[in-house]
């Protein structure tokens, strides 16, 4: 009898331990969630925000970022420009695979340096095999580019008209804007990564850790871009998905995306598909274009073309 009692006691001890651990785990969960504020925790879905909410969120984020990064940020909520549908053209016959765009994008969009996130992935492919991902090399490392036997295919978000990622998201944290840009509300994303499984272009990237802006090798700290958009390049929290937004913070102000500006060979073209006189409309009318994985019916607004 007493033996049983002893055991019961032991059991109770381990039960208490269990409860304690449980409490610890819960606390850790809250802290692990970066100790987010009540306002952030309760923030509503982007499409349900009132003007007042927007003002408060803008203020909250700007203060938060200033505190964290020691400089003034502006977080824009600028809406799509009416009568605008963005399209992108990339001249495969021009691209030399120099990866300038990759790093211009990193700088412009405050992408995490460690762990490394690249929204643009430049693939090297054999000229004799054509556009074929199974012979593509993302990690080509050459003294000089372009290589004579290879061509280069940079891939980022294709801004599909029929985006499978948007369909996949269980909480509507990602959607297609009126100007055709597929955006993510980083404050609404739960980090389930269903969109990443759904994307046929590897365009969605997860913040596996809190983004760090210090190069792990050189220890060099990179300067953040303080001109941000809520749905674009503002500093991201840990555990959410981000993606190319056609530089929404720039393009909604009329500027070209950063990758267009940097490209040394002018292979990158950008404009309004609804404007018959835009560069992109000219390309669609006069050049042969190809879209990636057209059999999936994603209807990309990213067009690869051969100008020559």
């Amino acid at each position, binding site marked *: 009898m007493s033996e049983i009692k002893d055991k019961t006691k032991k059991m109770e001890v381990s039960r208490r331990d269990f409860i304690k651990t449980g409490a610890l785990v819960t606390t850790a969960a809250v802290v692990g969630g970066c100790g987010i504020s009540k306002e952030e925790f309760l923030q509503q879905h982007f499409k349900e925000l009132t003007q007042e909410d927007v003002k408060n969120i803008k203020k909250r984020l700007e203060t938060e970022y200033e505190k964290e990064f020691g400089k003034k940020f502006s977080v824009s909520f600028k809406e799509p420009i009416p009568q605008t549908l963005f399209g992108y053209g990339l001249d495969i016959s021009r691209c030399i695979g120099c990866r300038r765009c990759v790093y211009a994008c990193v700088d412009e969009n405050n992408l995490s340096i460690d762990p490394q996130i690249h929204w643009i992935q430049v693939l090297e492919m054999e000229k004799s095999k054509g556009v074929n991902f199974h012979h593509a090399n993302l990690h080509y490392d050459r003294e000089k580019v372009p290589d004579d036997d290879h061509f280069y295919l940079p891939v980022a978000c294709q801004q599909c008209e029929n985006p499978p990622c948007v369909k996949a998201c*269980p909480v509507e944290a990602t959607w297609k804007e009126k100007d055709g840009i597929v955006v993510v509300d980083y404050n609404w994303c739960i980090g389930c990564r269903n969109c990443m499984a759904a994307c046929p272009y590897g365009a969605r990237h997860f913040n596996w850790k809190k983004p760090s802006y210090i190069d792990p090798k050189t220890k060099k700290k990179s300067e953040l871009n303080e001109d941000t958009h809520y749905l674009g390049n503002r500093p991201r929290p840990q555990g959410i998905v981000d993606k190319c937004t056609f530089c929404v913070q720039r393009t909604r102000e009329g500027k070209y995306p950063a990758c267009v500006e940097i490209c040394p060979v002018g292979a990158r073209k950008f404009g309004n598909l609804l404007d018959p006189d835009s560069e992109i409309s000219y390309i669609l009318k006069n050049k042969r274009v190809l879209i990636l994985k057209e059999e999936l019916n994603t209807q990309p607004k990213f067009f690869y073309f051969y100008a020559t």
Partner: protein
Amino acid sequence: MTIIRFLKESFKTVLKGNKWYYSWLALLFVLILWGGSGYISQLMNGLGETNMKDPVSWAFYIGNFTFMVGVAAAAIMLVIPAYVYNWKPIKEVVIFGELLAISAVIMALLFVLVDIGNPIKMWHMIPFIGKLNLPNSLLAWDSIVLNLYFILNLTIVSYLLYTYFKKKEYNKKFLVPLMLLSIPMAVSIHTVTAFLYNGLAARPFWNSALLAPKFLASAFCSGPAVLLILFQILRKTTSFKIKDEALFKIAELMAYAMFINLFFFASEVFKEVYSNTEHLVHFKYLFIGIGDNKDIVLYAWTSVIFSFIAFLLFLIPKTRTNFITLNIGAVLIYIGVYIEKGIALLTPGFTPDVLGQIYVYRPSMVEIQTTVMIFSIGFLVFTLLTKVAVAIIFEDLNIEALEKKRKKV
């Protein structure tokens, strides 16, 4: 007031047991603590503690999730043969099936929870409060059917045990519809989970119409494998009675299910190999490896070979009715399906990735720890629930007996 009594007595029962029971619980607690320490570091530092990366963005956790959904579904689907063949201990079979289902669903849900990058925002998935993307997102559907399934089974089991406890007959009008509903629900959780993969046109490895049928077939193997062993244990340690014939019948059904599973598998292999399109590359990665990346090949073949051996063991009457070969078969099936629905389903779907690049994934220590934690929690839940159920059904734990005891004192 009986309900408080019921809960109190259940609680008491859970605390009582022999030394084997206590050591089992102690082992589970140790494993939970060890695994929990890994999970805490993941919570602190993010999913970067796992070996998942952008190219392989779902892996060990979601593999385990899928397997557990299968177990949960099959545990209930076993109710069908129990009815069809009119097994004697039908109520018992149903109850233990339900208990297994509940534990498996809890594990499945936990595997999703630990895979979420931003768990604090999980409330966005609560219908009406958050913003569930219906009818578009299969993940939204999956969360709904899994939670409904959980609630449904919990209701059935608690109601059944509670009426036993009260020594009353259960209300057929209430219970039978729920029990009948649980069967299509069981099919639906596994089907929706299959559709979650199946609907992804970006991933040809999963984008096969055979996926959902294959899921069901393999679940019909793995779920009963667990129950087969469980029933034997219960029969030895409690007054639970089930005829050998019933167990052999389960094994026979598993043989048919395994045959269908293997047939589906062969059909898929034929289609991929013969047509030899670029989609073959995922099967290549799984069964041959690409270049030096052969990590997963051993597991893939283990799964196929184990499944095939188990199929033969369960098909041949002599080995099916021998408890040694029967149990070997059950273990082989369990391992075979665990690999097939886990790592051998997930990583080849993501490797090579959509841009043809290869990242060789293998689970990190933190992932293994967290998985051990969830398995231990699942076993713990199942042990405790079974303890209460056994006491109520076989050990005369009910209101009348308790009153009698009290009067005696």
